[in-house]
């Protein structure tokens, strides 16, 4: 990533260097038939952990555990969110069993929390229950928009980083807040494209680009994805990964949409790293003008 005028002069985050995306230009030159997310030289690295897939999935909204498992498998995801809730003695099957069977790393979230205090307690419960210090911090302001409360979010992030968590904050698409979260020591920045579950796509691509430009940690576009082109756009804008749930779990055919998202994320990443052509005002002929017959 290029340095940007928005970039803070010094990153206080000791993990930022390790969290940066590894990308080898040399590796891009060989085996053109094998362009896929399986290119082992280009991993997503968050908190020192490597991922081949750049698609992070949520599990909410799936019609059944079986449909969820099929969708997760089709998505190729290696990291998937769950929520923490009171145990339900009548529940059948556990989302944890599904993730275990699929070999997917679990990323607990703090969905439903309205204050930093609630989010911190939920994160600690998740760490205890799931034996992971990774947490997607989500502190919402109201139920109608589910937009993050920036003040509570930053407070929660600071406290959780201090307590040794690998913090992945779900945040507004605000470059200043993103910078503050990174300075607080977050392992990634996860700006929304549009409100959770809305399927409205990326409403402010310019802000996403600003966030990407300045970030020293991975940027994960989180929330608002409606269809495959939204996920591809996120990657073309320079995001390092995409997190989505509803677009897949509530699609008419979740596994089919999951496969679409997998391809979209790969395509968007390849397009971003390939270097797109500049946009031009007028046409540029792709066939030669010389040697046209009959003239």
């Amino acid at each position, binding site marked *: 990533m290029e340095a940007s005028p928005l970039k803070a002069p010094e990153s206080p985050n000791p993990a930022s260097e390790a969290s940066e995306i590894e990308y080898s230009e040399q590796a891009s030159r060989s085996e053109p038939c094998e362009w896929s997310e399986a290119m082992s030289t280009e991993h997503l690295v968050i908190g020192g952990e490597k991922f081949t897939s750049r698609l992070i999935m*949520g599990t909410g909204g799936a019609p059944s555990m079986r449909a969820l498992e099929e969708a997760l498998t089709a998505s190729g995801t290696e990291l998937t969110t*769950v929520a923490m809730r*009171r145990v339900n003695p009548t529940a059948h099957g556990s989302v944890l069993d599904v993730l275990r069977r699929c070999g997917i790393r679990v990323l607990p979230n703090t969905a439903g929390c309205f204050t930093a205090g609630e989010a911190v307690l939920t994160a600690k419960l998740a760490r205890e229950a799931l034996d992971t210090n990774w947490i997607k911090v989500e502190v919402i302001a109201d139920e109608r928009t589910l937009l993050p409360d920036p003040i509570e979010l930053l407070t929660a992030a600071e406290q959780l980083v201090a307590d040794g968590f690998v913090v992945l904050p779900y945040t507004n698409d605000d470059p200043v807040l993103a910078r503050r979260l990174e300075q607080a020591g977050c392992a990634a920045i996860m700006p929304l494209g549009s409100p959770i579950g809305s399927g409205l796509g990326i409403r402010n691509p310019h802000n996403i680009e600003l966030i990407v430009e300045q970030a020293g940690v991975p940027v994960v576009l989180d929330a608002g994805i409606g269809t495959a082109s939204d996920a591809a756009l996120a990657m073309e804008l320079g995001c390092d990964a995409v997190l989505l749930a509803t677009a897949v779990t509530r699609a008419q055919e979740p596994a089919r949409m999951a496969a679409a998202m997998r391809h979209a994320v790969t395509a968007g990443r390849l397009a971003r790293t390939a270097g797109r052509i500049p946009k031009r005002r007028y046409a540029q002929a792709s066939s030669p003008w010389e040697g046209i017959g009959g003239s």
Partner: protein
Amino acid sequence: MKVIVNGEPREVPDDATVASVVESVTDAPSGVAVALNAEIVRRADWAATTMREADRLEVLTAVQGG
């Protein structure tokens, strides 16, 4: 004595522990965490932590979400 378990009032024996109450709401061997009056109780301490009148116990697990 009366305690609150996951928001519901519940009568438990006077010698009830966190472990015995958790056992009464779930048989999951893992994936469960407990907060007693908003403080985490680690699994290793469940058996030794006794319940007191009006205690609030939260027993949580992972569900579909996010």
